[in-house]
Every structure is written in structure tokens, then in C-alpha cells.
């Protein structure tokens, strides 16, 4: 077990086999190489991607297919190589979510999903350059048409 001090959840224990290796960190936090996903029954459909290195941040994540059922992208050969996979079956996909003070304005980043090789326990945040997906896709369906217009 790893004993971790977190900002949001106090002291937590993370089993060693739940540790995810992010070789490059994520944009904005390149110094964080270890994360773990945290599940809380009362926060579904959200989960947290908790940093196990300093700073002890936690990114709110959500299944992107929950937000956009048609969401799809192709992982590049180099991204596949980075997460040591050859098959999509081993890959879990999450989108980073942001809930500002006004929760109606919550967004999810569909342009840069977090991809995790669940077998090898490693991951990265990939950037889908030509996908047309937004870094600020509205979370709520009511504003979906807006989201579409935002695509570039």
C-alpha cells in the first residue's frame, strides 16, 4: 500500500498494483509521473485521477462516451507505443472535466483524453490535433449544439 496525502480526500491508501505510470506527466503537471484512479460511489459518473507525486492534485475525470456517445478517435502509433499497447481492448479512456463555480458551465476536455493501458498500468494524455474536438466541450446536453459550433 502507498500512503498518500491528498488535498481533497485527506489521507488515502493506494494499493501498489493500482499505480499508473505516466512517463511524461500531463500538460501543466509534467513532474507528476504516478497517478491512480479513485472511485467514489456517490460521485458517479465521475472519478478522480489522483496524483501520487507532488503536487498532490486530483483531476476530475469522466467517461467521454457518457458525454458524447459518438466520441471516437484513433490513437497514433507513437501514442500506442508510449502506453505499450497494440490493441484498443487494453485501453481505458477518460476525459478531464472541469466544474467551475457555476456548475452549469462545466466542461470536459474531449481534445486531450487520458488513455490508460489497464494491463500494463501506464497512461498518457494524448492530444487529438485534427479531431475537431474541443478542450471545453459543455458537460450538459442542453448546450450540445453550442459544443458542435465550438469544434474547429
Amino acid at each position, binding site marked *: 500500500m502507498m500512503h498518500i496525502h491528498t488535498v481533497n480526500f485527506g489521507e488515502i491508501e493506494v494499493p501498489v498494483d493500482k499505480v499508473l505510470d505516466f512517463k511524461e506527466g*500531463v500538460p501543466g503537471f509534467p513532474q507528476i509521473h504516478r497517478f491512480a484512479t479513485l472511485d467514489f460511489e456517490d460521485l458517479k459518473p465521475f472519478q478522480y485521477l489522483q496524483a501520487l507525486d507532488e503536487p498532490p492534485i486530483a483531476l476530475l475525470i469522466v467517461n467521454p462516451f457518457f458525454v458524447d456517445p459518438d466520441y471516437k478517435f484513433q490513437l497514433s*502509433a507513437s501514442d500506442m507505443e*508510449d502506453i505499450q499497447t497494440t490493441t484498443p481492448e487494453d485501453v481505458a479512456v477518460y476525459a478531464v472535466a472541469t466544474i*467551475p463555480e457555476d456548475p452549469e458551465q462545466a466542461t470536459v*476536455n474531449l*481534445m486531450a483524453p487520458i488513455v490508460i493501458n489497464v494491463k500494463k498500468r501506464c497512461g498518457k494524455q494524448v492530444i487529438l*490535433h485534427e479531431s475537431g474536438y474541443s*478542450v471545453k466541450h459543455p458537460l450538459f446536453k442542453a448546450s450540445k449544439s453550442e459544443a458542435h459550433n465550438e469544434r474547429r
Partner: protein
Amino acid sequence: MLVFTRKKGESLVIANEIEVTILSVGSGNVKVGITAPRHISVHRNEVFEAIKRENMAAAQSQIPKADLLKKLLG
């Protein structure tokens, strides 16, 4: 900052393994080609910065409250 003047078709080599080639020069834009080993990631700066900002905002994000979850699932 190191500054070079290059013509169309000319290139630069960085650290023996990254080649930056000027492919075309238009009015107000330049097309640049980059050849680099796979482990070197190359991104448009504004895209990378936007993702950085989103991650930082996500790290400061509110914990989802029950009414938001209800609205989302309902």
C-alpha cells in the same frame, strides 16, 4: 532566442535528430515540416497551452455536488 533566416525548402537540424523544414511561405503563414524521433512530441503551442490551462482548472475544480450529478444522470 536563436534566429535564422531560411528559404523555402531549407531546413534546420536540432540536437542531431530533429529536422525542421520550411515547406512553403505564404502571406502571413509559413508551413513547417518536422521530422523527429517518435519520443519527441510536437504540438501547436496554443493547443498545448489550452490543455495545460484546462488541466490546471480541472485540478481546482469543484467536487461535483449531488444536484449536478442528478441533473447529469437524470
